[in-house]
């Protein structure tokens, strides 16, 4: 039996708790159907208007702050790098010339130029901290912000609450967990991972639908028989992986029988012009898919711009193989991001979704101010830039400032914990709440005293 156990009960007007609601949802054959859900929503049991969603764009590899969103034209050549700054549609804010389209959206963006972390300068630690707010220590794996959102608020109808596109982060050299799962909340709260490339011609979600020869009656028969056999063995209930496997089957049934879910993943329902606007590449189509999923009720979508830093052109511009050169970033990575990001912003705005959807664009660290002998830049967690748009945040501003060479925060230093706290704040999650940690130990959502970035809100 799938169960979404919550640390906090939310009581609805008719006396139901959210726990009851979710429990019923998982008991019923196909989950709570969309019509039931809508009925509840129309009765005011679920106030959709107030609920915000999030799309997290994770710039895996660690974009260079100096070559992207924090240019330093007055610094010496070996620091400022090969690109010139360009003006944006907000007076006083300039970004690198490799993002001409983004420059037209600075009025929507809250740019934070003073993020830093103090852990080891490997990709994996930054992934952990930027997605969960914490570094993993003493054997405790913390949950991704999207999993926390899903855990506290449950899925909307049949569709998963948190989806990762196109795949989970792969190896980036540290052999550490990346913080893209539910961690101690338990694997039942892990995100749904697409595991496919939506830019491929015959893209579909792998195995989402039964093959044609399996009629509805047979699907039902299989399921009943399976449950009969499974009931016998109580010992499986004491093992977390065995419980998880059962929960996965329940989730699979729910997803398979949902028209809403099926259509949400179907990119062929989009006009070609719309698809092309996002860019006919993996990241572009993931951004488009993210928009469709949010429309269909997904609460949180995480898009990984890349899956690994090896043998792929990414933000990881060490300058030498198997990593990326500055030129590779200029000709491939930046145009791809520039196009998809601006398309996503415009599209969400046109559809009236931007106000309720936070777009958080994050990276795991910055890069060395001084260009290395290979012509690239190495890992530098001492200072980098992230930016937010939508979800009601204050656009058209820069929060924090780096020093003359983009090496350290000059004022208003911001930690990864504060970045994640800001996401929680926008999503309406009480920062004072606690999560059920390992062995029922309550763990605070954020460490005591961690504040969201007030300037953005």
């Amino acid at each position, binding site marked *: 039996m799938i169960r979404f156990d919550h640390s906090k009960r939310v009581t609805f007007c008719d006396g139901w708790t959210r726990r009851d609601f979710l429990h019923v949802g998982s008991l019923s054959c196909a989950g709570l159907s969309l019509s039931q859900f809508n009925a509840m929503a129309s009765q005011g049991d679920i106030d959709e208007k107030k609920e915000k969603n999030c799309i997290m764009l994770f710039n895996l590899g660690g974009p260079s702050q100096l070559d992207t969103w924090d240019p330093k034209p007055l610094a010496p050549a070996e620091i400022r790098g090969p690109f010139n700054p360009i003006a944006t549609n907000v007076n006083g804010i300039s970004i690198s010339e490799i993002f001409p389209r983004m420059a037209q959206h600075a009025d929507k963006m809250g740019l934070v130029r003073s993020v830093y972390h103090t852990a080891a300068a490997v990709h994996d630690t930054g992934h952990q901290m930027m997605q969960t707010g914490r570094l993993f220590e003493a054997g405790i794996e913390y949950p991704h912000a999207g999993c926390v959102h899903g855990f506290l608020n449950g899925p909307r109808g049949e569709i998963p609450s948190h989806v990762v596109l196109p795949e989970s982060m792969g190896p980036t050299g540290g052999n550490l967990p990346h913080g893209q799962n539910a961690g101690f909340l338990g694997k039942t709260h892990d995100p749904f991972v697409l595991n496919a490339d939506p830019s491929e011609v015959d893209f579909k979600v792998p195995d989402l639908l*039964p*093959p044609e020869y399996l009629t509805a009656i047979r699907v039902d028969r299989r399921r009943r028989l399976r449950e009969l056999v499974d009931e016998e063995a109580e010992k499986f209930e004491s093992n977390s992986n065995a419980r998880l496997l059962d929960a996965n089957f329940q989730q*699979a049934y729910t997803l398979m029988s949902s028209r809403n879910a099926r259509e949400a993943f179907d990119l062929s329902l989009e006009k070609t012009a719309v698809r092309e606007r996002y860019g006919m590449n993996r990241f572009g189509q993931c951004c488009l898919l993210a928009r469709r999923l949010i429309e269909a009720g997904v609460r949180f979508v995480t898009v990984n711009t890349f899956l690994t830093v090896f043998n792929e052109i990414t933000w990881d511009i060490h300058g030498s193989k198997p990593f990326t050169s500055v030129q590779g970033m200029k000709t491939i990575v930046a145009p791809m991001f520039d196009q998809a990001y601006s398309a996503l912003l415009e599209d969400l705005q046109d559809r009236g979704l931007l106000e309720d959807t936070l777009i958080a664009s994050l990276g795991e660290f910055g890069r060395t101010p001084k260009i290395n002998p290979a012509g690239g830049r190495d890992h530098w967690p001492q200072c980098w830039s992230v930016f937010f748009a939508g979800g009601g945040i204050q656009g058209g501003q820069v929060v924090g400032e780096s020093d003359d060479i983009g090496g350290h925060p000059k004022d208003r230093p911001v930690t990864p914990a504060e970045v994640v706290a800001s996401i929680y704040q926008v999503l309406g999650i009480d920062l004072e709440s606690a999560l059920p940690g390992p062995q029922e130990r309550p763990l605070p959502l954020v460490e005591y005293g961690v504040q969201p970035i007030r300037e953005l809100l």
Partner: protein
Amino acid sequence: MSQVSRITVLLVSVCTAIGLCSGGVLKAASQKSQDVDPVIVILPTDVVLTGQHARQRLIVEAVVDKQFVADWTERATFRSADEQVAVVDQSGMITPVADGHTRITAQIDQLQTSISIEVRNMKKPSRWNFRNHVLSVLTKMDCNSGACHGAAAGKRNFRLTLRGYDPQSDYETLTREVLGRRVVKTRPSHSLVLLKPTGAVSHGGGKRFSTDSLEYRVISEWIASGTSGPSENDSLIESIEVFPKQALMKVKETQQLSVQARFSDGHIEDVTRWCKFETADANIASVTPQGAVTLQGYGEGVVTVWYLNLVDVARVTSPFPNTIPVEVFQHAENFNFIDRYALQKLESLQIPPSPLCSDSQFIRRAFLDAIGILPTVQETTNFLKDRSLEKRRALIDMLLARPEFIDYWSYKWSDLLLVSSRRLPDEAMWSFYTWVRRSVASNQPWDEFAHDLVTARGNTLNNGASNFFVLHKDPKDLIENTSVALMGMSITCARCHNHPLEKWTQDDYYGMVSLFSRVKMKNGDAAGDVTVFLSDQGEVPHPRHGRPLNPQPLDGSPIAMEGTGDRREFFSQWLTDSENPYFSRALVNRVWANFMGRGLVESVDDLRVTNPASNEALFAGLAEAFVDSGFNVRQLIRTVMNSATYQRSSETVSGNEDDQKYYSHYILKRLSAEVLLDCFSQVTGVPTVFANYPRGWRALQLPDSSIDSYFLDSFGRPLRETTCECERSEDPSLSQALHLSNGPTLNNKLRAKGAIDRMLEKGLAEESVLEELFLAALSRYPSDREKEAILVTLHEFTPAEVSQPEDEKKQRRQLYEDLFWAILTGREFLFNH
């Protein structure tokens, strides 16, 4: 209790106190021992105070039944027999006064105990030493941690070596850089190294210590006395020891730890104050920066103690709140030494063992774990019918001799050695795989296997093992993956700096690199044809000073640069020496995890002092037996499989439900990707088709991990890119459930001509179909209840009337397809249990 027996207990306990410190098997405070009044002892027992700066803090432990059960230091009053030699305060801190001997006594109510101590060198001037004191302070205060000035790039232009691994360079950084402002000899209090951490001027790392602390005194007095640097004559730290090493405690109780360091000149120091304490599992034990451990939950908690780059561990145990009669452990099945150690551990933690599993469970479990296939219906029924008492032993011997045994273990070691056509041409990949396979088939002793691997040379198509060097052209990659594969140890961190979690230094690392720096390769004419040979020159420079280091295997002794032949032979000798604990343990741990679902050390690739085994005595016993058997892997497997510990039921009994670590019951394992796919083929009678492989080839027979298969990838097959058990995943996921439900792998097998058709052709009754399916998939007969429930459900779905006999046949087939599907996706099938 009578006066006489109390005295006896006291004597016994005091006599064994020293033995206790070095560890012994802990027994839970059973009903019997709780009646015994505790005695007290002082720790540490060996106290010599050398010089004016010396201090020693004492701990008073309550002892019951030869075990430390409580920290009673706070309750004790201390007394020095001769205050002209040393004084002791009421926290147990001894301060030396003058050279000589005296006794320190601790008293709690009627209990009393004492130790003799010695004070030396009080007349000699005592100076703080850079290497042993200043660096200790900087390390304890985190100044040189990876997050602060120990980062590769330093912080704010101040860069120290990580945890002080290079004293000379740190000394120069402190005294020479920034125009000497960091230390000001003429006015020590104006030194930045004191102004910053005390918060007198702004410091990114905040305030670290105050001006009235001992830390401040050490640094300021060191500066005032002339900032002497590290010297050849410094006494070097040789070892550290934590007290108590083991303690039995109740949840929420606290135990203070004390740490002594021994130096090369023979003197001992209490270094507790500058040690760092860490805990591996904060849910069982937490520890303060001062070394006070508090138990948070039941089980065994391990605290790691660091002093400079030396490590020791202390274990604190809190038995589960069960009262298990001692007979439960005495009468539990005990087939070989594994069970003896496992039961001792269970008894100490008060976790009852589950009974042995049924014969059905055993045959299925043993087949899957040892050879990766299911027993046939015939094999299962024969085994169930067999009345012999020795039938499990006989089955194990039979499995070890099966050809599938070779498939299974060749696959496993190919994972370990990264056999894959991703990085090797097909011909070379096959040559490497065949070499592994031949070794498994002949049960080559593991030390010879390792030797042949690490000293391989010659043509890669003739000697498959040479491909190991082709896969790792950079000697740095080579030593890193070799260490993980053969010693279960990651030394990658030491490539750039001292290992932060282990004792390995960057020098150890480059000594290892030198062992392999003369291996060269030459491409031949054919694909995959490479000749691996040894050159008489070629070195890899150490990145810090640009000079190569003498070849040296980790903590082995170095050899000369020239004229020593194949340096790899020297490495191989050190590696496979029976005194090298890592080599035998790494293999034992891998084999153990294969059968028991969890390594004695987790994760399996992470053997290090700071990551202790869940049952050290068992681990040591297994490793010793493995060495004694001449590194006989098959013998090790036989021993594990014949233990009662392996044969316990996966069903829990009251009191062991929460145990996932101490082997009180068999741990459920999801079948691995390859085994699962093969089992689907076996039960449906429809083999998987792998491109370019003959029909009927099983997944476990593939030499290569880069054969396209969505199924294998989604169920967690490793890529074989990095040597790490973590490459393989056995976690269930939503994609797997979707794939089994809707994907082609299982569905196509059910639709293809196979077992279902054979059952239909034989015209088996539904009940017999059910029975055969259960035996084939689950190695058991269906229960009456299952039979009835399933047959009723089958009929509910069978349409009453069908017009055409053809339709009837088709519908019956679909009915069976669905029945097969239900069994093959059930948890009883997907798990080994």
